[in-house]
């Protein structure tokens, strides 16, 4: 166990969470090794987003703990773990770009607020990150002026600003056409292979899960917990669990 802890980037232990007496997920445990692309899958309403919120500290779990390496994640509202948060990059479902700032300012915000880098260095960094996601031409636009896919990419640039060790994607393909979403998947893979970032993707899209994930867990809305765990292809081909088969077949995967 002690050895395992040292290699896991994230470990979730017996997480139960919910809102006002209603339990959404219960007793979820998993380990994510460093450098892995990990998918959290399941049908709508199975608690993927709740689990994601617990993992990044936005929601206090009713029970259980999340560890990043050896340090425990506490809810941000109670005891923000700046050391951990600094290592996380989060891409929200709608992008969550600050609508009153330009794209460049959005990317620059964490750099300005959390580092003591000089103006010129920040400028360079912002350019680099925007270039990485292919948005260097739109740096001075406001988020409202961008398309859905561009917004996602801009948000990705912001999430990458501090070179996080772990990246979270909450439903990256929501509202994107298959082509754009495949491009985004490719970007995710590139990030993973070039800088060995650990990546957690919350998704219900089988296609993107197959394309990018090394391993996946499948949540079930009825059982409210993990019903399968493993590489997505293996889950699809070898599972004998009817619920797992339904999930994969129902999507025509």
């Amino acid at each position, binding site marked *: 166990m002690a050895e395992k802890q040292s290699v896991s980037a994230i470990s979730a232990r017996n997480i139960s969470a919910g809102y006002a007496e209603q339990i959404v997920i219960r007793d979820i445990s998993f380990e994510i090794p460093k450098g892995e692309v990990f998918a959290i899958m399941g049908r709508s309403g199975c608690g993927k987003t709740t689990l994601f919120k617990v993992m990044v500290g*936005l929601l206090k779990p009713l029970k259980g703990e999340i560890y990043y390496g050896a340090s425990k994640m506490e809810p941000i509202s109670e005891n*923000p773990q700046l050391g951990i948060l600094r290592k996380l990059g989060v891409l*929200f479902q709608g992008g*969550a770009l600050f609508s009153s700032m330009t794209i460049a300012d959005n990317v620059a*915000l964490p750099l300005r607020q959390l580092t003591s880098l000089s103006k010129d260095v920040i400028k360079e960094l912002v350019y680099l990150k925007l270039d990485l996601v292919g948005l260097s031409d739109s740096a001075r636009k406001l988020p409202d002026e961008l398309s859905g896919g561009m917004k996602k990419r801009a948000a990705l640039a912001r999430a990458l600003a501090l070179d996080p060790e772990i990246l979270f994607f909450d439903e990256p393909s929501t509202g994107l056409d298959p082509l754009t979403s495949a491009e985004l998947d490719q970007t995710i893979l590139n990030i993973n292979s070039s800088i060995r970032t650990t990546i957690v993707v919350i998704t219900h899209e089988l296609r993107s899960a197959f394309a990018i994930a090394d391993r996946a867990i499948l949540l079930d809305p009825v059982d409210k917990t993990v019903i399968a765990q493993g590489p997505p292809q293996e889950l699809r081909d070898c599972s004998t669990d009817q619920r797992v088969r339904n999930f994969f077949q129902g999507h025509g995967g």
Partner: protein
Amino acid sequence: MFQIKSKQKSFDELLIEIEGSISVENAAFVNDELTRILESQPLKNMELDLVGINYLDGSGIAVIRNFVRNSNMLRNTVTLSNVPAEAKRFLETKQCQINESTSILEGIDEPDFSEQVGQGLLVLKQSAYDIITFLGAVIEAFVTGFRRSASIKWDGFTRIFEKAGVDAVPIVVILSLLMGAILAFQAAIQLRKFGANIFVADLVSLSICLEMGPLLTALIMSGRSGAGYAAHIGSMQVSEEIDALRVLGIDPVLYLVCPRIIAVALAAPCLTLLADVMGIIGGCLVAGFSLDVTPATYFNQVKKVLEISDVLKGLTKSFIFGIQIAGIGCLRGFQVRGGAESVGAATTSAVVTCIFVLTVTNAVFAVLFYYFPRIWSF
């Protein structure tokens, strides 16, 4: 389009035949027609024959179901015959009887009185809790902000100050000028009776500097800045921007609330000073035109009666008002849950709460200044 024929089939049974199409355009007429037949017929057994139907949409099915239910209520027996295959599963007699869809469009039941009181108390408790937590968070943010002042950069502070202060100048100027003039007019009617025209200067300058100036400015600012902050932070809450700040490790209270509180707290006294000056000028205009008090006499009198402490009292108040306005606006923004409707509610609530809190605070100050009249006198 459609045709309804009813005829007596046997001694105790009525046959109703519907032909043609029932769609959303004519469903109302069909319904009226069927209801008329139902109400005018003494016969208790009915057969509704749909053989001639060539088109039946959702509203048509609803009309027939309605007919069946109404006849059941009158204790008639209705049989449907030749139901189109596609409509069969919606028109089985059994289903029409059992399904009670009548109440689905009526609003959710209002809870009874005691329940409402209880809910109200819970809301009160929750909002008291929210206010105290928020106050704590703001104080904590200010403390951390001052302690490691290098870590916080309010890049938008000048912009926030400009929006809260400078942009409000025109409306403050106009309204306070008018307010001074109105006060002078009201005074003029009474003062003229006693030939005490010159005292208009006392009345206008004192009431503007002590009460109207700070309060008017505060009300304008709660409408502009308080509501604006509630809407801005509320919509940031809806679009996950606040969450994004949190996971970036940026305290939204420190980053969003503190600069706004400082901006409004600084802008409010500045605007109040402006309002004081403009109000006194407004009074001067009216005094000059309708009370025959020359500007020189007017300002001489103002100089005699108005002490620096009066102005400072007003400015102290408006400083506190400023803190309250920004705080309430931001608090209401953070309380937004859900969607756009909630943002609107937060905006309204911010203004209403501001007006309430400002008035109460003003009353507290009135008592305070009554018992300590020498505050701010040098």
